[in-house]
């Protein structure tokens, strides 16, 4: 049984066809990257996979169960989503925000206990935000707020983690450390990752499966060697590219 599986999935947004009859299966240990131009519906597809919006047609099953029939809480224990942007309308502390990741795991009237605080604290340490527990989130820098979002996802601890442009706002050091943290944790706990990313070279370094959205409903999927070809990538970005051999494999540079 696959962790998440789509059958003949059709997703549209406005006049854009994101995918036509997409069959994709995500298994434990997979690290997927969704690539595509701006506005091809990468975020829309990610939200559809998380059950936040409905598809035009087709099925999504989570461990054999239809995603549509599952209660939100049950989905939230298995699928987590890092949004592209954070939207803080009210002041909240860093600790309060990261603790919200425990929400799906707690009973309706339950208060956060020592164990929840320990999990939250460990997540803050993992993203190098320990010591900032009492800071108000609206006073954080963009990169700090981004890492807080990742910490919240770690606290939620789902088997399938969907991350919409996780490296947004992050400096070079934190781009690498966050992606390595996610990769390490995925391998250790037998989880799965789906990234939406624009940096092909970071993607090839951390992902083992690729899904290309061409913007007309057509898609291509597979390992890097199968789908990351000159033809595909130039069609994908409508920009000439050059492959360069680097120390860790092929690097793609825009001409």
């Amino acid at each position, binding site marked *: 049984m696959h962790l998440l599986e789509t059958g003949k999935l059709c997703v549209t947004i406005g006049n854009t066809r994101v995918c036509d009859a997409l069959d994709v299966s995500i298994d434990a240990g997979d690290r997927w990257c969704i690539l595509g131009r701006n506005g091809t519906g990468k975020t829309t597809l990610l939200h559809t996979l*998380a059950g936040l919006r409905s598809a035009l047609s087709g099925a999504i099953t989570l461990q054999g169960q239809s995603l549509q029939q599952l*209660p*939100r809480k049950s989905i*939230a224990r298995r699928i987590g989503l890092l949004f592209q942007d954070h*939207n803080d*309308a009210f002041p909240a502390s860093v600790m309060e925000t990261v603790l919200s990741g425990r929400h799906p795991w707690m009973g*309706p009237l339950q208060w956060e206990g020592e164990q929840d605080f320990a999990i939250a604290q460990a997540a803050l340490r993992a993203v190098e935000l320990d010591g900032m527990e009492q800071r108000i989130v609206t006073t954080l820098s963009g990169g700090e707020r981004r890492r807080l979002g990742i910490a919240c996802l770690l606290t939620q601890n789902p088997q399938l983690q969907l991350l919409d442009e996780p490296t947004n706002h992050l400096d070079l050091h934190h781009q690498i450390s966050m992606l390595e943290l996610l990769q390490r944790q995925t391998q250790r706990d037998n989880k799965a990752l789906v990234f939406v990313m624009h940096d092909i070279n970071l993607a090839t370094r951390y992902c083992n499966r690729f899904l290309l959205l061409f913007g007309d409903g057509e898609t291509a999927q597979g390992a890097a060697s199968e789908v990351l070809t000159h033809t595909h990538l130039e069609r994908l970005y409508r920009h000439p590219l050059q492959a360069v051999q680097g120390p860790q494999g092929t690097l793609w540079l825009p001409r």
Partner: protein
Amino acid sequence: MRTLILLALLLLALASLLTSLASGSVSVSWQELQSVLSGEGSELARQVILELRWPRAVAAFTTGALLSVAGTLMQVLVRNPLADPYVLGISGGAATGALLALLLGLGSLGLHSAAFCGALFSMLLVFSLSHGSGNWTTSRLLLTGVVIASGWGAVIGFLLALGPEQGLRGMLFWLMGDLSYASFPAFGLLVLATGLLLAIAFGRSLNVLTQGEQAASALGVSVTALHRGIYVLASLLAATAVTLAGSIGFVGLIVPHMLRLAGVRDHRLLLPAAALLGGSLLVSADTLARTLLAPHQLPVGVLTALVGVPLFLALLHHSHNVLGEAR
């Protein structure tokens, strides 16, 4: 920390209630108040305190608490810190009902029922109009509420223009919020207690909801159901408050902010704290309203606005966090 805040607010509530019982045109000393509360005291003092001031003080407290809890909930619902309990046209609907009852010369029961029905009608109207094409977003809800509220404003102006000269004063007092006809609010207390307990039970979901609808949904909150629940609950609380004392402004807007600024952000604590602080503030405002220019009584809504406007501006001026602005 939690218990400390609640304890302090509880003391504040007690102090405001006792001050309200002791002050007025017939001055009552603390000893006299003590003896009346323990079941003794002179006939006059007993009558003034138990039959006049006590019901009015409790009505003021209940109204303030209802408005503050409703305001807190509305702010979370529309994710806008500037929302108040009336943002969805509740007060306009209630005022229209009340003015119609005054025009028709109905008694106090008729007035209260008409106000309550008007508030509920407005709530259903806003709900169905913002729900129309199936896409229920909070921004559409907010806009529909604002438009309907100004529609009620026009109806109220029309009714005031039609109204007889001698009835105008009573109508204006009602529009500004007035507690002088308040009786012991058994129904209001019941609504307050039930609503508060219900809201606190969903407190953790409300905390998550402040991060946004989609984020809350991804964290396992059934956002649509929760939205509808908050909508109905906050509307009922606001409708009950308006029925008790007319449209009293600012309490429901500033009390949640004062508490958030003081660091109370968890809704499981914020909601009961808002009830206590809002109740105390309105009791104090009402005490001032009936003693400041005695024997004249001011509408309490005028006082809350007079105190509320500078207080809110000061809060805005001194804090960058109140609106969640980035630094």
